[in-house]
């Protein structure tokens, strides 16, 4: 769907993006991660043809990216604004028309989204009359109004309350299901973990990591397991004996704990469960994978 090859861009001798290549597949949600100032927004602006790279090329559906392709792109920038004195309708009409939609198409699509978000009564309200959360919904609607094949979202969850984060996440999942491709730049690692299929990490203008979320977490697991149980902590420790090592514990209540355990010698997860059954009342047990947040911090701080 979208290929970026060796993109390089600098601003007055300061390199913002250095030889970055990416590839997005159709129907996937791709997370673009990186600390502030890493070059994510520059990369997104290059895809949107807002700025031109010094080196490299962008291909959209196999063709060299041109302005004509922008009608197929939706973009919600990190620093987004609205014309405060315009109504929701006028705003959507203006941005929709800029995306080459006809008036009828804008009307139809706007009504669909307003009803979907249950905000049809806002249609003729001026932006300045809306709360921040309301305005953010309008911004999201304006980005997807023209049913883009590729939706680029730069920090889409910033400023949203948890209910609206959930709402937007669900919409993104639904769009993915409908075959749309989504490029998501976010610092919200929980959301990235939940909805992204693949991610790339940009740090100091370079791409330092790319892969599927599941695989990246799998690759960085350290053999830790968690057991949530009801019973006595002493009994749990005795049961482990020499085959396992207790790394950490969380006390949930007087007799409920989560214990983090590492294997010794050839022992595995099955052995651990066998050892514990009968000693304590196991409520849940799982292999602990590093979170995207941990991976992110580890990679960024180690460089």
């Amino acid at each position: 769907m979208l290929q970026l090859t060796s993109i390089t861009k600098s601003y007055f001798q300061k390199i913002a993006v250095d030889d970055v290549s990416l590839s997005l597949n159709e129907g996937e949600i791709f997370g673009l991660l990186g600390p502030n100032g890493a070059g994510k927004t520059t990369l997104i602006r290059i895809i949107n043809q807002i700025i031109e790279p010094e080196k490299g090329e962008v291909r959209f559906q196999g063709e060299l990216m041109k302005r004509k392709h922008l009608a197929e792109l939706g973009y919600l920038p990190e620093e987004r604004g609205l014309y405060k004195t315009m109504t929701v309708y006028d705003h959507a009409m203006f941005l929709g028309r800029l995306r080459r939609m006809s008036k009828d198409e804008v009307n139809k699509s706007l009504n669909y989204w307003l009803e979907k978000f249950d905000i049809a009564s806002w249609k003729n309200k001026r932006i300045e009359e809306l709360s921040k959360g309301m305005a953010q919904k309008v911004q999201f609607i304006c980005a997807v109004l023209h049913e883009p094949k590729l939706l680029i979202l730069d920090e889409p969850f910033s400023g949203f309350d948890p209910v609206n984060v959930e709402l937007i996440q669900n919409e993104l999942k639904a769009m993915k299901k409908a075959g749309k491709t989504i490029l998501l730049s976010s610092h919200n690692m929980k959301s990235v973990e939940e909805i992204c299929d693949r991610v790339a990490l940009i740090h100091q203008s370079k791409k330092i990591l790319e892969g599927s979320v599941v695989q990246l977490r799998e690759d960085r697991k350290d053999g830790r397991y968690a057991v949530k149980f009801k019973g006595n902590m002493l009994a749990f420790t005795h049961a482990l004996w020499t085959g396992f090592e207790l790394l950490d514990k969380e006390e949930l209540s007087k007799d409920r704990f989560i214990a983090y355990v590492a294997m010794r010698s050839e022992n595995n997860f099955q052995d651990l469960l066998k050892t514990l059954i009968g000693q304590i009342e196991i409520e849940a047990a799982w292999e602990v994978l590093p979170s995207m947040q941990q991976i992110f911090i580890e990679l960024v701080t180690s460089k």
Partner: protein
Amino acid sequence: MNVSWLVAQRELKERIKTRSFIGMAIAGPILVLLMVYILFSVGENNKPHWKVLIVDPSGIMDNKILANTTGSISYDFANDYIQLKEFEKSNRFQKYDALLELNEKILSNKAAFLFYKEKPSFLFATTIQFHLERRLEEVMVGRFSKMSVQEFRGIKQPISIAFRNLYDPKNESYSLSGWVGFFFGAVILLFILLFGMTILRSVSSEKSNRIVEVLLASVKPRQLMFGKIAGIGIAAIIQFIGWMVLVSFGLYVMRETLFPDMMDISNWNLGEMANQATSGMEDSLFRSKVYNDFVELIYSRIQFGDMLFFFLLFFIGGYIFYGTFFAALGATSGSENDGQQFVLPIMVLLVIALWAGYYTMQNPLSDITYVLSFLPFTSPMVCMVKLAQGYSLGEGYQIYVSFSILALSSYLTLRLAGRLYQNGILQFGHRLRLTQFISWLKHG
């Protein structure tokens, strides 16, 4: 639909809904009319007495002129040729403030010269012109026509008086019609300043509320800048048309109510006139005549077709020339309050342009005026004045040269400003410095 046009439409809708636009559309013409009213009602009271010597060697005037009812201007006649040096130095002419020279061709070329020692006020100049015209009407009717003076006034050609400084008769000159050009030129500059500042505010507010990044995903920076300049420019033209309609209507209403034409017998209200003290009525009659002459100057003597055509051309050219600077400034500033220090040079240029218009009225034939008429930042003002004064035969091409230079300059500034706009529009939070400005200008 062209994206620039969509941007322009949005900008236009936004502008014409604002209170400041509506307020300006009403307050502007009222202010103009008020100034005209004050000029003709109040401004005349404290003028000194003027004594004018009419040099009429051919005896066309027959040593007669319409009596000056206010007594503020009096005339003497001389029926022989008087050299300007003699008039300037001879003791017997020291009591005169001005010499009005009528040559034998005045009935055909409708041109006369007035050499003044001290520049006459606008009101005095209008009055002298009015007196001369009225007398010549009588002469013309007496000599060539069987029509009444009233009928003749309907078809006559206006007289043009060139006002010149006695001490510098070759260079110093202005005509009343130059003031109309000055008004048009001043309106151009006023609108450039007001709507230029609107461009600046609009660009920097789009930048500070970050809507600009959403727009740039659909519109090129240059298209966005051009659409914005065009939309605000159309709003300015609508504002100007509104001004013209209201001012024209207001002048007409003032003519019918405040300054009725007392020469027209249908406007005589004998009862009221009888009730007025004689001096008061005379004063009122005089002022009405001066005003009517002024209105006639505006309505009949100026080539409005040409004026409006070139006004539009020079307005558009001048507006783009200056407007692009305002847009570039808005785009390169780091915040809405940043970049104010760069507005000052633009304001200075506009003030210079205003001065250039005034200078042109005083010195229409000077070399400096000639140069100023071609400089893009002064030509919108200077050319309006020159156009109203009338280009000399064979010099009409100059206005096209001036406009071509302005159009070319506007195109160049549009390109340069486009470069600044493109480089600066997505830069936030900095403090604009000249070095940065130049650096963005260099990077295409």
